């Protein structure tokens, strides 16, 4: 009954590889997000989709490409992985944008690039 789930939980890969992280929410939310938590523990937003439409795209390298096949899923594909991509990536979802737009987070995916 997990509200926001991510797979995989851990991902270890070599530099230069391409990898994907999947996210699914069963809360019926319209908006989904990807956040990155770096080594300094700051959580920073990367992307946001509302009803499969990209609405937030922060300054993220083009190697990162989100894809939303439907409003319950938001996947993150990363090309040509670099050492600096090592971080914990969190997916989140929320109700339609409004004054009580509380975001609910998944458990995170720890990506380690060797």
């Amino acid at each position, binding site marked *: 009954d997990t509200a926001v789930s991510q797979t995989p939980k851990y991902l270890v890969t070599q530099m230069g590889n391409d990898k994907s992280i999947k996210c699914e929410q069963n809360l019926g939310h319209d*908006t989904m997000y990807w956040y990155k938590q770096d080594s300094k523990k700051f959580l920073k937003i990367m992307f946001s989709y509302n009803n499969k439409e990209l609405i937030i795209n922060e300054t993220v390298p083009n190697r990162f490409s989100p894809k939303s096949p439907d409003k319950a899923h938001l996947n993150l594909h990363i090309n040509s992985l670099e050492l600096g991509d090592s971080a914990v990536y*969190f997916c989140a979802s929320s109700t339609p944008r409004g004054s009580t*737009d509380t*975001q609910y*987070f998944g458990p995170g995916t720890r990506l380690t690039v060797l």
Partner: protein
Amino acid sequence: DQQVKQNSPSLSVQEGRISILNCDYTNSMFDYFLWYKKYPAEGPTFLISISSIKDKNEDGRFTVFLNKSAKHLSLHIVPSQPGDSAVYFCAAYGTDSWGKLQFGAGTQVVVTP
């Protein structure tokens, strides 16, 4: 540039006492503030929130206070329990920002018996 700041990286408090976590922000366009709690190897869990039209919101042992003129908010946990030991993140956004949450760096709370 960090728009949400939590200047205390850690806080140790005795069980049963009050925990007070502080958060400052710089962006006057923020109008919704949230506190999240995070255990190791888990995602942040929503704890409590407050709209800028209020100065206090209470939910059980948790109370959030907002001082807009000082651009400051605080989270009070009374009484503190061992299960409250976690990292607490302050977050904020403006309703015209499409839910773009800005997070503080977090405060590690340790509740000792």
